[in-house]
């Protein structure tokens, strides 16, 4: 009787291991298929082919805000003035998370500067939110100035990274339409053309 019990336990254990392995394999294949769908959506080329370094947030295991209302915030800019997302209600807004140590961030910031001027007639607002750890405002201002930007640069609070589900990667950018909905988001530096396409999409052009 004892032998049968031991044997039954072993059979159950092996069965469970096989089931768990097959289940995980199916999950992994499904995840890979989803990733492939993300890479070719909207008729764009995969990043490797297009030269873009931007990837979808969901590929990195992060939570996507696409289709959701952009989390509200009130932060202080580098001059000490309070700035709220609500201040720009009715405007398309680009929210770009960056840091002074981030080379790719500094590469794309002049493009944001250029497009903030180009699409100003359409009401475009660009906001940069710094993600340096405990860096004084004047140093952040120095970094922004070196990148040649004049759009508002905001200092982070303890909640902003969590509310926007930021991962470890920078830059990370959210394109918010005039209704306050996140229409596009990107991690890493896109090509300039991709950036402009996202901006035009959020403006509704």
């Amino acid at each position, binding site marked *: 009787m004892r032998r049968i019990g031991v044997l039954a336990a072993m059979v159950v254990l092996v069965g469970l*291991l096989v089931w768990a*392995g097959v289940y995980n394999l199916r999950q992994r294949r499904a995840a890979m298929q989803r990733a492939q769908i993300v890479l070719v959506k909207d008729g764009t080329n995969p990043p490797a082919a297009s030269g873009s370094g931007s990837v979808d947030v969901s590929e990195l295991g992060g939570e996507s805000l696409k289709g959701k209302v952009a989390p509200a915030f009130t932060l202080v800019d580098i001059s000490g003035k309070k700035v709220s997302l609500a201040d720009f209600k009715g405007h398309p807004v680009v929210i770009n998370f960056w840091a002074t140590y981030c080379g*790719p961030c500094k*590469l794309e910031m002049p493009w944001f500067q250029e497009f903030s001027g180009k699409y100003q007639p359409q009401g475009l607002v660009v906001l940069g939110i710094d993600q340096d750890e405990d860096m004084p405002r004047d140093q952040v201002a120095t970094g922004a100035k070196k990148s040649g930007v004049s759009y508002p640069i905001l200092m982070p609070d303890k909640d902003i990274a969590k509310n926007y589900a930021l991962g470890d990667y920078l830059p990370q950018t959210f394109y918010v339409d005039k209704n306050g909905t996140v229409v596009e988001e990107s991690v890493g530096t896109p090509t300039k053309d991709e950036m402009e396409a996202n901006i035009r999409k959020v403006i509704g052009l």
Partner: protein
Amino acid sequence: MGFGSWVFGVVAVMPVALLAQGISFGDAPGASAAKKGHVVFISDGAVVEAGKPEVIELQFRVDEGFHINSHTPPDALLIPTLFKVDPGEGVKVLGEEYPKGAAFKLGQGADAEMLDVYQGEFRVRLRVVAAKGAQTLAGTLRYQACDHAACFPPRSLPVQVAITGK
């Protein structure tokens, strides 16, 4: 079929079950990359002459496709790679020597920026004096990693080196 045969059969199936588990090991590529530090310490311990200044090398490897700033990046806002020695007894560090970085072009055309980086393997040389016997040198490598399109926050990699003074 006897009990022994049943047990043998079950045990024979075990590798298949374990293999099935092995298939699922590891996260999706992006998720695992996000958890990694992108730099590993790969040196073995060192044997030195006790009581005399000797040079030991701390060898690190940066993951393929990534780079970290060298000890002397071209911009003050960039975070240099730095090895900080923890206070301890048995090993005294007299000096540190960092390798030269390699030029790395970020971006293209007029927007490009030149960086000074470590890629692949690099070695930090320490001039040390160790007491006789088995000693441990502890410290932290502080660095900041990027790939061609994104960066990660600064990280600190704890390092322990077994040094035998003879």
